């Protein structure tokens, strides 16, 4: 078997997993399982910002591959698909051409369409402003704000600008729209509206992945993810604070 080709396959699987926000141990295990089932002994070292695979096969030649991970999103469905793919490859032997085709199909699998995401974001915001003991009116105002935040976030990340700027902009949008709503209709509870509408920005996956990485001993990525979560909170907070200061004066 061609060592280079096998390692490229493993690298692609690892790349998709890391871009979808997987834990380190899952991605490393997947890459190791894929290369092992084609007779290549691979050593993997993954971090949230880049992955390294090095291995040697039957031709006794060592090869190292490296891939930089630049954009990271949350896509649990893709993680699941790769998970069952690696389970399948481990159990039954499928040809490498077929495996490559399958993996490319997973990597090009379409994301859920924007309108249903916007509806989900809107409902999330209104549910949380009700859960924070807000009124029905707060919930109705938080919904469109959250949809606008989601739209701005996905727009900026599509352009490819760095992540914390889009979070800062989201904070600004949440603050500005909530203060505007308060000006128009004074009975609005501004804290409930803002807290509900920024719930979609909570770095949930960063925190849980950080915990699991720490448990498995991947200390570098664990600390990196905790730092990421803190930066997210600070970026949103600064944007919000700026708007509140402007709104007060």
């Amino acid at each position, binding site marked *: 078997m061609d060592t280079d080709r096998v390692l490229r396959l493993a690298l692609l699987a690892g790349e998709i997993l890391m871009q979808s926000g997987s834990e380190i141990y899952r991605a490393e295990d997947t890459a190791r399982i894929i290369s092992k089932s084609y007779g290549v002994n691979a050593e993997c070292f993954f971090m949230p910002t880049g992955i390294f695979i090095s291995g040697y096969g039957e031709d006794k030649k060592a090869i190292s591959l490296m891939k930089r991970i630049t954009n990271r999103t949350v896509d*649990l469905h893709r993680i699941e698909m790769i998970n069952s793919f690696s389970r399948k490859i481990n159990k039954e032997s499928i040809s490498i051409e077929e495996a490559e085709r399958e993996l490319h199909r997973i990597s090009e699998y379409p994301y*859920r369409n924007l309108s249903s995401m916007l509806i989900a974001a809107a409902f999330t915001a209104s549910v949380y402003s009700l859960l924070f003991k807000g009124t029905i009116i707060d919930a109705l105002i938080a919904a469109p704000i959250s949809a606008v935040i989601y739209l701005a976030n996905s727009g900026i990340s599509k352009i490819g600008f760095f992540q914390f700027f889009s979070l800062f902009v989201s904070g600004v949008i949440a603050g500005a729209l909530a203060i505007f709503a308060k000006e128009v209709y004074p009975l609005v509870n501004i804290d409930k509206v803002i807290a509900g509408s*920024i719930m979609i920005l909570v770095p949930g*996956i960063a925190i849980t992945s950080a915990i699991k990485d720490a*448990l498995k001993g991947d200390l570098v990525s664990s600390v990196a993810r905790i730092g990421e979560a803190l930066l997210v*909170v600070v970026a949103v907070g600064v944007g919000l604070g700026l708007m509140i200061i402007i709104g*007060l004066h």
Partner: protein
Amino acid sequence: MKELLLAFFGSFFPAILFNTEKKILGWAGVSGLVGWTIYKALTYLTGMPVLATFFGAAAIGFYSEMMARRLKTPASVLSISGMYPLVPGITAYLVVENIVTGNLSTALNKGIETLSYAGAIAFGIMFVTASIQFQAKYKEFFRRKKKNTYKL
């Protein structure tokens, strides 16, 4: 009752945002429901919300580890959306508001409160995951030990 429904949808809709598979969405909602029920009950019984958050998160961790085996998906699919209702959104907002209005001591107060909630969520899930992994390792260790003694 109304809050339980809200907690269910509060995990259901974030799960859509994470592109979770359709058949798992309902189970993700139940995960939030389980955590919120434990949290509310313990807050009522003990009057200590941070402790209640810890046990709520532990319940979510336990539920997701169990359901992950049955549904054959990664456990984090369920636990991430399940912990959303426990996230201290409103206290985090109050920190920002108090900082910009200059009430730094209140901000510090609320900041420590937010951090302790977040820590309780993280360690609650970690506690369950670690103990389930420990149990699996423990079993494996003794199986290996038994095999070795037979060989001798």
